[in-house]
């Protein structure tokens, strides 16, 4: 097909504004899938995505559409995640496109991530097409929302299609607008191959599958390819497009979005953001890759069964291939043995990765409490970054510490201003400014310490505003802060995996809450277990897990013996799901207890 008739675009939106549903409708309308095959949220293929109703991974699909001008067009759509944690996924898909559909909910209007995604799209020089969705809702106010888009974002919304993806209204208008407003891809098909890797995953039969946007040149099976990052040469065994399943196609050329399989076995040889070129006719320069991912939250991941370290390593390597924003390095803990210190884009991202390791690789894991990366300036002038509390130098060697600060944007109806401001104050926030977008919506800007928001800020803000407020943030920099290391002792023994870095002012409260939570989470043992919180050797809180007093099968006679033995075997199984920290048996969930800061 002539590249004039190709459109590469993505859909961006605040979470829940209806991206995946609109993608479903576009596919249905273009006959990509028949109504009969139609499952809701077709592109959300991971179990976790369907269960949680969110998109985590970007998913590409190719569609054909005969427009009102009588011509047939090839439309490559990349569905993207909406949650703030997955901005990196969004930015990668943007780099593969020329245009972005911006969905705005007709009743909720512009939200925090609407704006964040628009900025990303603008950075990538994309054409943006606003679409007003959910116009079927009684509370829809499309005209006001259009005005809001023009005022807040500065986009011309006069031509924005009015749509209800759920009801199938206005879908054709969207397709026509895509063709009319988005540019067709440019790129010299005669130039040496340059293909941007925007995603990849590991297939047991074909090896690593690269998702690429061909910017220049062409590629077909039999070609020898290499990447700029490694010198290894691979022979292409298959090229193809997304329909949305992999559909082989003889050749990909400039402007195409598709995949390349080249029997790449080593996960370490390819990286998302790298450029693929031909081995015998290489391009002189790689394409501009992506910004290096910046991890925001860190935690330790350990196999529940220490002997499965290598399986965990394999799992993390494979996941990284599919999720370039996951970073990791080997680590070991006195309490938990060998494992990995992993970096994530946020708490949801962390949860998703944990869940994927457990589900997709059948591994049981222990994760330690999340931490952010602190800057430590030592008395000898050395500066280091510490994201693992147990790697903190001794207090005497620390001159001062700095913590990461974010600039947070909160959008809310004015009714909840008080609650939001209270919350930000509790979280050590600094008020920057407040803007009324219209009568019913306010934008609040705050500086907040990152370690205060990674835990439960998002949930708190949702619960305090009955779900009406939205929130987004970006890292701003480091600020000096009074931070201390809070240690936890179980039965008198320090447990490194439970240590955390906290602000001095909240150390006592955190220590107390933590001891209380641990007391609830650690099952009673044969002996009494003191749970203590300490700062630099000084005990600041203590709780006691009382010794168990009754743990017996009352009767056991002839007919019971088999059944009673099974009960004991079950108890033994349960015990295997625990880790011994010194003499104390601790269930794996305990390490996440640190997360619960209070009981609201």
């Amino acid at each position, binding site marked *: 097909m002539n590249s004039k008739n190709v459109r590469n675009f993505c859909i961006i939106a605040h979470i829940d504004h209806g991206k995946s549903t609109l993608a479903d409708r576009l596919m249905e309308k273009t006959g990509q899938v028949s109504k009969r095959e139609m499952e809701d949220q077709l592109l959300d293929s991971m179990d976790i995505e369907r269960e949680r109703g969110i998109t985590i991974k970007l998913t590409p699909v190719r569609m054909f559409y005969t427009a009102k001008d009588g011509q047939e067009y090839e439309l490559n759509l990349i569905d993207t995640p909406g949650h703030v944690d997955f901005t990196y996924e969004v930015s990668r898909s943007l780099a593969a496109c020329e245009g972005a559909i911006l969905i705005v909910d007709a009743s909720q209007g512009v939200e925090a991530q609407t704006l964040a995604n628009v900025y990303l799209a603008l950075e990538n020089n994309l054409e943006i097409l606003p679409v007003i969705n959910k116009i079927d809702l009684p509370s829809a106010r499309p005209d006001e929302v259009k005005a809001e888009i023009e005022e807040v974002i500065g986009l011309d919304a006069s031509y924005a299609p009015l749509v209800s993806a759920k009801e199938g209204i206005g879908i054709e208008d969207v397709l026509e607008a895509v063709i009319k407003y988005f540019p067709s891809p440019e790129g010299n098909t005669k130039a040496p191959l340059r293909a941007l890797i925007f995603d990849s995953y590991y297939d047991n039969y074909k090896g690593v599958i690269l998702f690429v946007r061909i910017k220049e040149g062409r590629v077909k099976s039999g070609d020898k390819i290499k990447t700029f990052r490694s010198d290894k040469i691979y022979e292409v065994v298959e090229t193809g497009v997304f329909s949305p399943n992999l559909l082989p196609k003889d050749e990909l050329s400039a402007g195409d979005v598709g995949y390349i399989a080249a029997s790449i076995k080593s996960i370490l040889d390819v990286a998302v953001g790298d450029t693929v070129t031909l081995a015998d006719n290489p391009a002189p320069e790689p394409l501009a890759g992506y910004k290096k991912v910046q991890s925001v939250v860190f935690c330790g991941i350990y196999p529940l069964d220490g002997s499965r370290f290598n399986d965990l390593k394999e799992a993390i390597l494979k996941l990284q291939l599919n999720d370039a924003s996951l970073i990791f390095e080997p680590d070991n803990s006195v309490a938990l043995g060998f494992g990995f210190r992993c970096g994530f884009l946020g708490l949801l991202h962390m949860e998703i990765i944990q869940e994927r390791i457990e589900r997709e690789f059948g591994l049981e894991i222990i994760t330690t409490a999340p931490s952010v990366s602190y800057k430590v300036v030592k008395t000898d002038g050395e500066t280091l970054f510490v994201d693992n509390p147990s790697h903190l130098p001794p207090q005497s060697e620390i001159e001062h510490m700095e913590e990461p600060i974010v600039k947070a944007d909160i959008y809310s109806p004015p009714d909840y201003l008080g609650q939001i401001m209270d919350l930000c104050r509790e979280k050590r926030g600094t008020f920057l400014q407040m803007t009324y977008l219209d009568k019913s919506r306010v934008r609040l800007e705050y500086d907040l310490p990152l370690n205060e928001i990674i835990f439960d800020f998002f949930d708190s803000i949702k619960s305090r505003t009955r779900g009406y407020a939205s929130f987004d943030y970006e890292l701003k920099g480091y600020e000096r802060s009074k931070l201390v290391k809070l240690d936890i002792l179980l039965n008198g023994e320090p447990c490194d995996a439970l240590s955390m870095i906290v602000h001095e002012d909240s150390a006592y409260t955190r220590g107390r809450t933590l001891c209380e939570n641990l007391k609830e989470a650690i099952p009673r043992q*044969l002996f009494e277990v003191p749970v203590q919180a300490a700062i630099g050797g000084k005990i600041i809180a203590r709780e006691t897990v009382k010794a168990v007093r009754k*743990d017996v099968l*009352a009767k056991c006679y002839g007919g019971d013996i088999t059944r009673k033995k099974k009960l004991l075997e079950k108890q033994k199984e349960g015990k295997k799901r625990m880790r011994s920290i010194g003499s104390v048996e601790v269930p794996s969930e305990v390490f996440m207890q640190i997360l619960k800061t209070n009981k609201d």
Partner: protein
Amino acid sequence: MAGIYVHIPFCKSKCRYCDFASFSDKLCYAESYMACVYREMAKRKEELKNYSFNTLYIGGGTPSVIDESYIAMLVAAAKKNFNLSADAEITIEMNPGTVSARKIGVYKKCGINRFSVGLQTAVNSQLADLGRVHTLNEFVTCAKLLKGENFSADVMIGLKNQTAEDVEKTIETAAAFGASHISMYALTPEDGTPVYTDYLNGELPDGDEVAALYEMGVKRLKELGFDRYEVSNFAKKGKESRHNLNYWRRGEYIGFGVSASSCINDVRFTNTFDLDEYFKCILSDNFAVIDRQEIDKEGQEEEYIMLALRTERGIDTADYKSKFNADFAKKYSSQIKRLERFLSVDEKSVKIKPEHLFVQNSIIIEFFN
């Protein structure tokens, strides 16, 4: 030495905690049922001809609810088919609400020499709560009829609204009226029984409260001359239940009747729990076994440890060696080391210290593979 168990699955009404095979509306089948039991015994005669038995235990249900003549015939059938030693311990379970002087007379005459009476509690309101058909007075009448006999009383702890005084009163009543043996069990709310609902509603005492009742009970029993020989069983000197000790020493036993279990030659098997099915099997000249499991060496050893650690005397290391051809203290040295605060170890035995017997599960499972 081995034991014989016979299950009588009839009762006047179902207790609220009961999850045994026991039917309150099928007493009319007692005659046919007993005929089947005699027949089942005859069918096992050949295969067990080289076994000597020294205990017979008639349990239920409520064995005392059926006509005493069936019981007399049952004992006779056991003696006729098997080598039951002359001094065998022959026990019958009784509900105090279903006995009479005549019944006890017949029992004694046919050779029954041990009686197990379900007292459960001396508090009438708690008896009613449990759905028991008798009152404290009826227990007293029953105990008087058993005067001078070797009898045991069952006592339950962990009942709704039960206080330490209630438990004490129950123990004292049993002792005062001549029990030579007391079984003191914690009520176990089994899924599917009405008591389970009480449990879900939080109406039953929690583990700590039950443990306190137990400790108090153990102390009071000791003062009254009852020594604990198993976690839930207490006896005056020489009055331990031989039949039950055989279970805890992992001895062999054969069971007859609905739901009865057996362990012969390291094979465990269990009869059907369904009365009709039992009739059908026996009347068509088959056994009524629904579940049969050969216990491998490792399983035998785990059972042995699990059962022996329930008893006051613990694991007899010489007996262990003769059965498993290994030195217990050596084989389990790491477990013994780890659990040293909870075990008492000498050349002859390894046992759980008396004060930890009520938290034995987590100790026992350390010895499992």
